[in-house]
């Protein structure tokens, strides 16, 4: 027990050891958190009327970010899968960083769901036995199970690995490997179920097709590794942890193939829907071309398409894909383009037109935007801290019985030694 306690203390204390950049980054994120506190206070006291949502478009930016981030969480598996199934040495060494990313993404998902709910105070109604859990009827209850399960798998898997590394013991593979392999399959399930959440509603024809889960997964496995490449690059440039080139090269290959599949699926959908357009394709038509001057989403759609096609073509060229200076910027475009695709080009037009054919446009309010930015900031703070601690352990700077950060702090604060 002493070891566990020491692990927690040393992990925490290591988070306070950082350079100027580290603190500036955290400070920058905190600005958004302060705005977020105000935004949430407004929304909780006034109700969801402070958002731009209406009865016509009742799912907006919050749910769009949720859907996207489920994909990012699932995308972490692109590190775990090659590491354990194909024994990729370089990725194997940093698997735990992928798990930390998954944990942060799921936490962001939860924040966005809470923002989306009209009565977050009544969340306990969903707790089985205490409240009513409409399982297996309601797809939302499936989503809660898979997301919480995924969070748990990554927490247990990630921190078990870190703890063993910290105390310098061998991993018990009979415990650890099943967690890893279950988590790999589970990652697919979180984005599949999230797709089912919206595509099982015949009332919304734009979403009501069987291609949705695989489209979700293909974009997730592009956005997820794109973010991981950016994170790995930052780690390589700013910490002593060196992540091998071939780890990044494999990830960029995954990005390019998944982008290709995603584009192929999008094109298939466009052809199917628009070759002989029916009323069921009005949502897609509105998204692509607008409708009688209502064209809020049109620029978003084409920007996203341009981003996806452009980055796909660039990444197809090995010379560019392997240029680790340019790659993070291309990945940032991929990440952004898929964020737009999931939100402005999928979730919002699903409600336009309404089931009775009314075209009502939606634009988020400032409060909605600060709440979204705040959720992202909290997620990035969590990610930064988790990565910081994990890297400390991977580097061996934090280990049991060593010159602990805890001891150093005590030393520094002791007036006798000052």
């Amino acid at each position, binding site marked *: 027990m002493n070891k566990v306690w020491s692990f927690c203390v040393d992990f925490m204390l290591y988070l306070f050891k950082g350079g100027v950049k580290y603190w500036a980054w955290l400070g920058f994120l905190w600005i958004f958190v302060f705005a977020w506190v105000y935004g949430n206070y407004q929304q909780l006291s006034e*109700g969801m009327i402070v958002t731009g949502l209406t009865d*016509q478009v009742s799912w907006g930016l919050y749910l769009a970010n949720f859907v996207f981030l489920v994909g990012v969480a699932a995308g972490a598996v692109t590190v775990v899968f090659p590491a354990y199934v194909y024994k990729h040495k370089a990725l194997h060494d940093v698997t735990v960083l992928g798990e930390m990313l998954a944990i942060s993404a799921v936490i962001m998902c939860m924040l966005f769901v809470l923002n989306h709910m009209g009565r977050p105070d009544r969340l306990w109604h969903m707790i089985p036995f205490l409240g009513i859990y409409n399982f297996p009827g309601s797809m939302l209850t499936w989503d809660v199970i898979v997301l919480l399960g995924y969070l748990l798998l990554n927490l247990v898997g990630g921190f078990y690995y870190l703890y063993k590394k910290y105390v310098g013991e061998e991993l018990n593979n009979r415990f650890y490997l099943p967690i890893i392999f279950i988590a790999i399959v589970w990652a697919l399930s979180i984005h599949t179920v999230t797709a089912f959440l919206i595509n099982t509603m015949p009332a919304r024809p734009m979403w009501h097709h069987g291609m949705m889960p695989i489209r979700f997964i293909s974009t997730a496995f592009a956005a997820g590794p794109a973010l991981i490449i950016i994170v790995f690059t930052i780690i390589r440039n700013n910490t002593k942890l060196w992540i091998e080139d071939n780890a990044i090269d494999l990830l960029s290959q995954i990005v390019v193939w998944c982008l290709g599949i995603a584009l192929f699926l999008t094109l298939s959908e466009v052809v199917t829907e628009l070759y002989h357009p029916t*009323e069921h394709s009005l949502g897609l038509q509105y998204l692509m071309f607008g409708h009688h*001057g209502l064209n809020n989403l049109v620029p978003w759609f084409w920007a996203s398409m341009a981003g996806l096609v452009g980055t796909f073509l660039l990444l197809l060229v090995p010379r560019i894909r392997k240029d680790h200076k340019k790659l993070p910027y291309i990945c940032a475009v991929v990440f952004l383009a898929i964020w737009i695709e999931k939100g402005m080009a999928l979730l919002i037009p699903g409600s336009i037109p309404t089931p009775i054919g009314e075209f009502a446009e939606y634009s988020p309010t400032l409060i909605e935007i600060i709440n979204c930015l705040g959720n992202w900031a909290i997620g990035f703070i969590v990610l930064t801290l988790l990565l910081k601690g994990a890297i400390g352990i991977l580097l061996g700077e934090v280990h049991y019985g060593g010159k602990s950060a805890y001891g150093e702090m005590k030393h520094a604060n002791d007036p006798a030694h000052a």
Partner: protein
Amino acid sequence: MAEDRLPLNESTADAECETWDPAIHGDQPPSKMTRRKFVKNTSTLSATSLMGTAALMTNSDEAQANTEWAEWFQGNYREMTDEEKQEAVERLERRYSAEYGKDVTVDTTPAQEGVLFGYALNIQKCIGCRRCAKACVEENNQSRGDQEIEWIRVLKMEKGEFTEEKMGEGYPDDFGIQVGGNAYSAAGVVGEGEHYYEPEQVPEADSFYMPIACMQCEKPPCVKVCPVRTTYREPDGVVVIDYNWCIGCRMCIGACPYWARRFNWGEPKLPKEDMNPDTHYLGNRPRMKGVVEKCTFCIQRTRKGRYPACVEVCPVGARKFGNLLDPNSEVRRVLATKRVFRMKADLNTYPKFFYYVD
């Protein structure tokens, strides 16, 4: 529209006995009993009501805070024991009475044996006056003003979508017109039917009207997606919502193919003087912010043998209501003798709201 609204309060409040139709509930005793029971209930609850009134005069905020705190812990309506229901109802009556300054009753009359409510609407007769929509709001305590919620929307359909001058083109003009709006009367171009029309007079030339509201589906998609089973189908076929159990996730709004559900985006605005004090727990009791609501076939009236407010107010008799299990009911006669269809029948939701023409 010269007569914008009928004097609804007079006509609806005392019309209870006159509107009894044996076709609805067979030969059960008419609702005079209900009126008596209502008075009796009020006297037995007078102590609590007085407390409520006292609280109103002294410290209503505190009373309200206490009741809301207790409400927060209450279970789902369907899982409550009779005692718990009684407690919940008394609590609500106390809060509502204090809040609205009148004796508010919250009824819990359950579904009756052998009753399955059904509705039929004659689109040939409807003139698009929207008295139904107005009467509905006054009966069912919806939010007013800039946050107005209407459960009934009347779609104006251009006749056949073919106009004289476009006849040669072989297909209708591209749909709709654009109208302005905000969060509560949203902007948009309407595809199938325009529901913001404001003409000098109804009916308009070359138009017919198709009112919509909750279709009370036998296979309701909204019920299936609700994660906490706060919305469910009652044995008499009405899909209801326990407003105190709703978590506001709006899955049901996404799943409803008829755009029948409304959300309380802010604290509902229900003026004291407009509040209808005869309420049902699952029906027209005042709602709170952050929950979903919709048509319940006026459960507070129909379970006591009265017509829904919209049926009562319709000036052309386009609206028929009754028990689908009673072969002699009006709605059954419509189904037997008229040309009947259901909206979006392809979705297999099996609405109990039928449209017909003579």
